[in-house]
């Protein structure tokens, strides 16, 4: 079967926010089929066979995640994570703003599959337009009898509730999101217990990314084999990739995993005239940089991991030869330090320390010893926090210090000359 776009199909051509348009193109048929014809376990089975891996960042197999829920007779919850805030990522924003109904349909199918009667969508606070579009779409779907109790003449039903974030990157971490959803301070929970055992309101909960859920109607429609045979077998399927940085036409591109980075660069219009791409961050602000020699690597979860970085949420940022990597490193470190919730000592103190050190280097106060210290401190704060935010600092910083050490030394030398 030829590979073609599914999630982004029609965007910019028709108004997919319109329920009628969405239904005319086959929307909500899979939801009706699932609820009237399939058992939840069958849905889980189909999704497992598709080998769909989470599109939010960690790439965990979705079917396996669903399988962790205990059979304890307690209420369960499906939570859609739309707190997209990873630097460089803007695909979920497009999905909820442009095609809210496929996200709703995915949430309904996912909720049904795990036996949840209630689903929540946690929308990043800054996504005002996404929130408005989604709210309208939800009301339309409810009026059309697609959401609520006893749907399509069955005993089953799913309700969806929207919750808006208040501007914290950390709430994209699933347990911080759950705390925030409960009205508590948005900080990650200690694990174990994991959300599958004790999640929202201490009940079994699945948190899935917007894009992950949006794929469900298509996997059910085309069959799991369709999805599983796209791209590399262990990392299959389509992916909406946000491409930005020093490219002519930044944007979201839905591609088959296994595409090369060079192809993504071409999709985004290529480098600026007369410029050369010298580095690329393939998986958002938390990922380590790859360099020009890596542009022909296959863009998939496992290849990225094998090369010391990650696919993450699918945010590809290209850097050309005009880049000041000291400034770039400072911008990202400042972001993570600013967004640290402050619970864990290494992340709270270490991130801030790196930020002030980089700031000093940028302002001409750098010491020779600073450069080794930056790498050492970033290493020291990694792997000992209760969530991955702190661990997000080291990959980019360490990779660019190693590759572009001369730029960092240059700042320090400037100071030496001035002195």
């Amino acid at each position, binding site marked *: 079967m030829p590979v073609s776009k599914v999630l982004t199909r029609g965007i910019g051509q028709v108004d997919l926010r319109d329920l009628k348009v969405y239904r005319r193109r086959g929307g909500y048929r899979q939801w009706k089929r699932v609820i009237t014809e399939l058992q939840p376990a069958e849905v889980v089975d189909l999704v497992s066979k598709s080998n769909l891996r989470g599109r939010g960042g960690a790439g965990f197999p979705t079917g396996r995640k669903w399988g962790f829920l205990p059979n304890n007779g307690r209420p369960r919850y499906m939570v859609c994570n739309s707190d997209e805030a990873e630097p460089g990522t803007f695909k979920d924003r497009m999905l909820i703003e442009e095609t809210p109904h496929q996200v709703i349909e995915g949430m309904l199918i996912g909720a049904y599959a795990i036996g949840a009667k209630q689903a929540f969508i946690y929308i990043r606070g800054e996504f005002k337009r996404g929130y408005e579009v989604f709210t309208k779409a939800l009301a339309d779907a409810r009026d059309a009898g697609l959401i609520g109790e006893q749907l399509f003449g069955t005993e089953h039903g799913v309700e969806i509730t929207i919750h808006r974030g208040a501007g914290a990157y950390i709430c994209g971490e699933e347990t911080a999101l759950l705390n925030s959803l409960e009205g508590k*301070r948005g900080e990650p929970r200690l694990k174990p217990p994991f959300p599958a055992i004790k999640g929202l309101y201490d009940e079994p909960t699945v948190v899935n990314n917007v894009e992950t859920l949006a794929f469900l109607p298509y996997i059910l429609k085309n069959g799991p084999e369709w999805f599983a045979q796209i791209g590399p077998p262990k990392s299959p399927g389509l992916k909406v990739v946000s491409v930005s940085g020093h490219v002519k036409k930044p944007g979201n591109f839905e591609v088959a995993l296994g595409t090369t980075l060079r192809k993504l660069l071409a999709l985004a219009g290529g480098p600026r005239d007369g410029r050369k791409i010298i580095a690329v961050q393939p998986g958002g602000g938390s990922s380590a940089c790859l360099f020009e020699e890596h542009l022909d690597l296959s863009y998939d979860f496992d290849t990225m991991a094998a090369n010391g970085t990650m696919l993450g949420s699918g945010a590809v940022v290209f850097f050309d030869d005009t880049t000041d990597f000291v400034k770039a490193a400072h911008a990202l470190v400042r972001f993570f*330090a*600013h967004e640290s919730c402050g619970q*864990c*000592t290494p992340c709270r103190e270490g991130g801030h320390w790196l930020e002030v050190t980089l700031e000093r280097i940028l302002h001409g106060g750098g010491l020779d010893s600073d450069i080794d210290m930056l790498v050492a401190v970033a290493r*020291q704060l990694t792997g*000992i926090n209760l969530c991955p935010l702190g661990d997000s600092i080291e990959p980019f910083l360490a990779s660019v210090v190693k590759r572009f050490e001369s730029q960092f030394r240059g700042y320090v030398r400037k100071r030496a000359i001035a002195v």
Partner: protein
Amino acid sequence: MNGAPKEVTLTIDGTQLTVPEGTLLVEAAKRIKTDIPVYCYHPKLGPAGLCRICLVDVEKTPKLQIACNTTVGEGMVVHTYGPKVEDGRRAVLEFLLLNHPLDCPICDKGGECDLQDYSIAYGQGASRLADPKEIKPKAIDLGPTIVLDDERCIVCQRCTRFDEIITLEQSLVVKDRGQRDVIATATGTPYVSMFSGNVTELCPVGALTSKTYRFKSRPWDLNRSLTTCVQCSAGCAINVDERHGEVLRTMSVPGDDAVSEGWLCDRGRYNVGFYSDPRRLTSPLLRRDGEWVQLGWEDAIDLWARTLHEAVDSAGPKSLAALGGGRLTNEEAYLIGHVFRALGCENIDWRTGRQRQASPGPRGGTYADVESAQAIVLVGVPPAQTTPIMSLRIRKAVSQRGARMILVGDYALPIRVAHERVARPRDLASLDLDRYERIAFFWDGIDPRVGSELNEFAEGLAEGRKIFTYVTGETPNARGAEGMGLVPRSGGRDSVGMLAAARDGNLRSLAIFAANPVLHMPGGADSVRGAIENVPFVVTTELFMTPTAERSTLVLPARGPFEKSGHTFDVTGAVRVLRPGVAAPTGTLSDLEILIALASALGVDVPGPAALHRQAALHAPWVARGFGDPALFAEGELKAPRAGAKATGLRLVIAADLFSGGGTVYHDDRLGELRPLATAALSEHTAAVAEVHDGYLVDIVAAEGTLRGLVVRVAPNHVDGTVTILEGLPDAPASAFEGGQTVALANVRAARVPVGVA
């Protein structure tokens, strides 16, 4: 949940040990006396996983693990030291100390600071920070008791978790995030809690300190003694820290799981300044022609003994009476009965306030039983006002077991938890309590009619159920006084009867031990004062010249609870031990010593010290037949005189404040803001109807008279249609009023007065 928990065998630092499944590594290590450093973890608060100092190396796990949230596993091999572990801890400590001010030389925590200790054990000598440290506020006033030094804070969140998990008050939170985060109240209002002092002990660094102890001492200069707090009847174990004869602070006792669970209320913790107050009495004083003259101890005791003999000779033993307050030890309570009964006197009573009964009857429960209750019924003054530590157990039952909370009467709950409310015990019948197997009943011990109604209800449920009863009254060691026989027997008069007899001129001599009936006895200060003045010879043993002492003939300087040894019963009837923790002022004697001297002068034999201790400690506590036991209410009329309610409007509620009282609180200058104002508390609705606002001044008009100049306090937790005043305030004595009657607000003025913290 059947059978014994599964056991798991693991190895820590080469030592094999077997512990129950689910044990945390940090707790397992304690079994082999291995100390794993912790900041955020606390056994009573559970793991938080924030500080990351408790890193240990678990074989077959690549990364270091936090011991506070890793449970033991079969065959697990754990190393709590070694290069890998020590490097992890060094890293965490480097981060913790990065912006820490290192002002140890002027920090109150210096010498008992976990940050100091672990820095010495695991830290590195020098910091790699090349930039200036972050400057943060140094002395943030969090409320009447606590000061925050934000630079020292390591954000372990013990304080906020205590306020959330243990007290359920949720007023302390972490504000802002990352490096900018700071401990504060969510609403920006002062941090007010009757358990606030505990956060200073939980704080592993010097960030949270007590106003009463800031910059007072170094821990190594303090002498510590373990005793029992006698500020209320809870019976908490308490550590007294003294230097040069002055009690500088008190600390909780971590192993006191039977009672306090290692917490203290603020009254017990902070009301210790009175011990070294210059107003302490240090010499017997005799009133002669309206003037106080100093007297030697021997002369004082001889005078007293002679007067007693003369009274018995001239008017018979019925002309004698003895009152003993709740600060007495069991030995002292026992000796009062022993000495006065030897004279033939049966007019003996401990009830010098509103509380009329101490023993809860044969169904009395323990502290642990409270936690197991599925339903909790609070009748009258809630335990939070009288026995704060008991209220923490109740909160535990509510938060951990989802116990149903039911209030009887008009009293406000200090925290916001779901509860139901009925007017009288008999109304409990409508609540389907029979579906629970374990029910705890708390009664304030004040109104016998309420007590016996409650008793009837509880007994009706007892079949096939566990009923736990508690009398959480306001009088400390009331249980001991009642158990040791400080109650009238064989036709003797109780306290109300004694005052009636005094008024009628039938008492020749009255002895008052460690009590202040002028302030606390129902009937009103004027009435009690008048009765006392009508007795030719009144002896009072006291620490201070209280309103009662002022009206006495002979005042004997006594010793406080931290200055003597003995035993008490806690509110559940368990024996607690008092040991002296600070030297008493010269010239004072304990009530025990006074009683022995008196007995000797009277020619009454007393048991030797060993026999006395044995008798008092092992004396089976006297057990009432239940709430409102008629045996205790022979005199019947216990209430304030009631002239018939003619005022209209609001129902009067007489509550106790943690810091009510005219004795130890009144004479403790360190307490400052904690001393309650005379307030009239109303719900928002009631205030709106009555057209009064927070901070207004009002008078309360009742049939018995008028209480003037009360500050209006509008609080959401009060029952509509009621007005709550505080008892035990020397400036606005509420003892003349009876709770539950209808009163009116009068003379409302909008005058704003400096208002303390509610």
